[in-house]
């Protein structure tokens, strides 16, 4: 009987550790908001942030901007649910977020900039070329593409970060976010 109790407590310890790790690394509906492929931590950088959010950004070594000013979204999959890989080409497309300023940048899985001879790592609402009507498209590809292009090199898994500052309607407003469509894979 004692052995079974010990086993049960060990399972409880493992469960406690695993659930903690999951809530810090991935987040849950309590701490994150997901819209399409994009996920944002709703209390990022705030003084009243919950312990999971605080631990998430401390562990990753990031310096988040408070969600009182900006919503920072991250995507690691395309709109079909496949993980973003540098061996595939994608297009990030949609209408411009209705906000004072926004920026989009691409990183490898660990948040490192991807080396490329063109020294292109991101676009923002001041540097992006867009079509009339406010639509835009940014191609993520290993080799050069016309228009807005972000090189993916040989980074392996990719992460795309979208930061929207002062969205119209405030921090809880539903913002139109772009989709990430896979074009082709090698």
């Amino acid at each position, binding site marked *: 009987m004692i052995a079974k109790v010990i086993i049960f407590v060990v399972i409880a310890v493992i469960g406690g550790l695993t659930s903690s790790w999951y809530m810090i690394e991935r987040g849950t509906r309590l701490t994150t908001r997901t819209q399409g492929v994009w996920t944002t931590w709703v209390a990022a950088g705030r*003084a009243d942030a919950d312990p999971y959010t605080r631990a998430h950004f401390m562990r990753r070594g990031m*310096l988040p901007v408070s969600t009182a000013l900006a919503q920072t979204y991250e995507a690691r999959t395309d709109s079909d649910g496949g993980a973003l890989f540098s061996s595939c080409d994608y297009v990030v497309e949609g209408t411009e977020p209705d906000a004072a300023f926004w920026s989009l940048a691409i990183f490898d899985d660990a948040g490192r900039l991807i080396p490329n001879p063109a020294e292109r790592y991101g676009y923002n609402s001041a540097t992006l070329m867009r079509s009339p009507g406010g639509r835009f498209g940014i191609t993520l590809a290993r080799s050069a593409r016309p228009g807005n292009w972000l090189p993916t090199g040989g980074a392996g898994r990719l992460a795309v970060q979208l930061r929207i500052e002062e969205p119209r309607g405030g921090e809880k407003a539903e913002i139109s976010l772009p989709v990430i469509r896979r074009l082709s894979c090698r």
Partner: protein
Amino acid sequence: MPLIPGWLKRLSWQTVAVAAVTGGIVHIMATLVLPQFARATAFQRIASKLSLNAMHVLPPATPDAQLLPFLSADERIAVCKFDIEAGPVDVTAVLPEKGWSLGLYTASGDNFYVIPAQDMRRFEVALTLVPAQERFFGTIGLGKQVDLSATQVQVPTNVGYVVVRGMSRGRSYTADIEQTLKKARCVQRKA
């Protein structure tokens, strides 16, 4: 195969309660302790570039020299580590256009104050960082000159960070951004 194994059914409710409480305690402890095992928080990563009560413009992020993860190469930042133990700290910065902001952080990374650039005008920010209890009286000592033009901000912890962020509008603006960030100041008042 039964849904619940026989031995599990024989466990008393006390055992289940103990296990659940144990799991909960482990969960809470792990959540609070795990960040302490972080390889380096954001401010620990940039600590070597900073000195106390002085603004430092960090070098632009490149693949070979990236101080912080997920920091865009378009984004330039100036950081000041402040300590208000010995007196208030005056902070000034210019936020010339949208995409710029000034944020105040506690040492543990909470962004307790943030002010963005304003529409269509060059925005000069002047703040005085004071301890939480000294907002009205502590900094207004007899015989001292009081700067009423600056906004006083109560800081929850004595030590923290000022972060001025600027966004690039393209390579041709790089020098402009650097110059504007270099104008930011973070100075402790003399007693």
